């Protein structure tokens, strides 16, 4: 058909698979069409639909930064049919990609601000792409603080990235776990509590947070206690998306579609929507 077909995936090859945790794998893929890979552009926060041929499609944030285009990275937590099939794939296998979809973080308005990243579990995935983007454009942003928590040390992803970032002096890294193990000598505590201990300044701050619903709820409360206004808090929503292009009617919250008007929303925007998360 002569129209560009929003529902037709591009074929792509898995270059590398990294086992992050027991149930999270990171896939680095390249589009098979070299020109399209060269022309591919996106901004942090945008997502893609990955096809495991024979099983189906599922939505994942593009986890790499647009400043590093050797590959497109997606982190996949195994929860259902499609993710299970994806986890069986290996380097050299073909997947389908429909990307980029959705909106992105408002990096322009974040320039000059002090950024606080708060990620819980797989919620770290969308934060990573923005964090790397900012580190690659470091002078444009103020202080950068990362608070990343998971249930246990074994559930922390991006260990290579974390080791690299800990070596830098232009980013503050705080890791925490809910349940410690003998080899853990870091903080033990729930994210909202640790956040309050860190006590980031709200005056020039932007908080970017993502994680399980219960974590978001209490993190929001903590941020408000610390003085963050609603439009200083940004999150990205996970919702069951099918078409990813505003057609199938599934991902709406009120009159907004998470796949077009989101998945990135400020808390101020979320408050205007009906409470249906």
């Amino acid at each position, binding site marked *: *058909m002569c129209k560009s077909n929003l529902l037709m995936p591009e074929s792509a090859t898995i270059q590398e698979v990294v086992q992050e945790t027991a149930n999270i794998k990171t896939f680095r893929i390249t589009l098979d069409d070299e020109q399209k890979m060269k022309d591919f552009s996106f901004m942090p926060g945008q997502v893609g639909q990955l096809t495991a041929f*024979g*099983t*189906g499609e599922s939505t994942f944030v593009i986890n790499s930064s647009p400043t590093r285009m050797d590959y497109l990275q997606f982190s996949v937590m195994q929860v259902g049919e499609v993710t299970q099939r994806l986890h069986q794939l290996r380097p050299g*296998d073909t997947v389908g990609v429909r990307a980029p979809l959705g909106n992105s973080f408002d990096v322009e308005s974040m320039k000059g601000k002090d950024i606080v990243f708060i990620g819980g579990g797989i919620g770290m995935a969308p934060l990573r792409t923005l964090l790397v983007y900012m580190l690659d454009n470091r002078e444009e942003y103020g202080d950068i603080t990362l608070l990343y928590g998971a249930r246990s040390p074994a559930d922390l992803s991006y260990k290579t990235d974390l080791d690299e970032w800990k070596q830098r002096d232009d980013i503050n890294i705080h890791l925490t776990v809910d349940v410690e193990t003998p080899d853990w000598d870091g903080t033990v505590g729930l994210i909202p509590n640790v956040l309050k201990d860190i006590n980031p300044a709200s005056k020039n701050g932007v908080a970017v947070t993502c994680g399980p619903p219960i974590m978001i709820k209490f993190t929001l409360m903590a941020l408000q206690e610390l003085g963050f206004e609603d439009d200083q808090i940004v999150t990205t929503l996970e919702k069951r998306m099918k078409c990813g292009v505003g*057609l199938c*009617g*599934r991902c709406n919250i009120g009159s907004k579609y998470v796949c077009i008007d989101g998945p990135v929303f400020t808390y101020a925007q979320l408050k205007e929507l*009906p409470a249906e998360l």
Partner: protein
Amino acid sequence: MGRKYIAENDVIAWLDTLADDNLVIAPVAETGTVIYRPYLPGTEVELTNRPVSSPKEAVFPQTELLFSYKQDKDPEHPDRTKVDMKEATPDRSTVFFGPRPCGTRGISMFDKVYNCGKMQDAYYVTRRENTAFVTIACSRPDATCFCHSVGSGPADTEGSDVLLTPVNGGFVAEAVTDKGKDLLASPLFADAGKLEQEANAVVEKAREMLGDPHDFSEAESSLYNLFDDMDFWEEQAAKCINCGACTYLCPTCHCFNITDQNVGLSGRRIRTWDNCMSFEFTLEGSGHNPRPTKAHRLKNRLGHKFAYYPENNEGLVACCGCGRCIERCPSGVDIRAIVLAAKERSNVQK
């Protein structure tokens, strides 16, 4: 072009000539229900009773092939597979004959979602370009009809290419679009002349039979006000049995599912109608469901039609007032009653 006229006996001949170059779809009565079937010379076309299905299937088939795929072993690297995808291209020129205005109006609502500036659905747009809708104006509304309460009427031309109004012995025909003009070029059509007045009278009578419209103003604000009032929605949803009859018969409902149907190493990706009344519609992989009960889902359905869609489309209500959902709901859930109850409840809360 002024209006034309075709005798009832010539309608079949007209469809026969159209069938030479087009796929013609026409209403056929089966077991007391009227549905759309491909027309072939000899098919008995039902012209009086309104089809129970809506015309959306012309541009939004219940099952649509998106593409087929085949996984092949890579001969250079036997442990790898590569995939060939073959896009499906609907390209049949179609004349869709026999819907009522309350059905075809739904097509123009689809246009605003599937063919708007932001997003274009390639399959829909292709079918839409290749399809002409020949609508029959309504001369006898049912008790469940309320097209006039949602900005429509018995002779609404939204979405149609030709509008036929039944008169004594035949139909007065109006070309709504250029595509429609071409269809009426057949020598079976004469000038309507004085019959235009009879056609107008038929439509007027239908309007009278509809009675007074319901007042759905403020539906949007009422529904937003009641979003957290789960007691109200539980009461309204009590008799709903969560099937998809209302959704699938509705001319404007456009939600779909995408699934891969696999046989060995090859398969098809299809999209199929889906309905927001089912539990699994918003069920997430983690097990969390934003709309866990039928009350939540009924609220979303009403919200979408009378609040969210209008908010995104300058107040246009995503309901044609055809009443199919009321007539065929196994429990008799009445969308008109729910909207009016929402208004009343919202006013009381103020």
